[in-house]
């Protein structure tokens, strides 16, 4: 069974977070902080907003399919 797209998106978000944590262990200078605060954090936040909206929409679509069966 194929996972829902929002679930796959969540998994990708976790993988990116893990990659950042790993990079941050070795990359701790000024540019690292600028990159993290100025670019990566907004990306992660916007991704969470999108994935939450996608999850809500997928829930609605599943409910519509289920409730109108038969």
């Amino acid at each position, binding site marked *: 069974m194929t996972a829902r797209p929002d679930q796959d998106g969540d998994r990708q978000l976790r993988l990116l977070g893990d990659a950042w944590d790993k*990079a941050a262990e070795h990359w701790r200078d000024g*540019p690292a902080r600028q990159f993290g605060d100025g670019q990566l954090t907004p990306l992660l936040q916007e991704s969470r907003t999108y994935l939450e909206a*996608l999850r809500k929409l997928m829930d609605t679509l599943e409910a519509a399919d289920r409730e109108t069966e038969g």
Partner: protein
Amino acid sequence: MTGIHADIDALKGLHDALVRYRHAQRDVTARGEDRLTATRASLEAKASRLRAQLELGQAEYTACQDRAAQADPDDPVDCSGYARAVQQNSERLEQIRLWQQRIDAEAGEFSGIIGRFADLLENDLPRMEEHLVAIIASLEAARRVRAPVSGP
């Protein structure tokens, strides 16, 4: 050697992760859109079938009512089954119409959010990747300059 270039290796790993993320989330957005399109089409097909059944059911109910009006009072015609079928199909059709309205409303709200996210995937993420490539190149250049000269 591992420790010396650990930061560069870590940055390369982060760069690769960003590229994978961009491709994977593009796929996620496309599948989300496909799912929305499929459910809309499925609801419309169900509504279309029900409209046809309702039309047929109403015609049968009307014919039954005509027969009932002309029937012998001692042998009445029962049309309640037709009436029930029309009522049930009307309710199911209304239920589908309400789901279609709800999905349209939620999809409308969603379109703004997906627009921002798609823009981020298409424009911001490639810029971040390029930024990291530049940082990696800069670090590698600095290491080459600082590398000790060995020789006789």
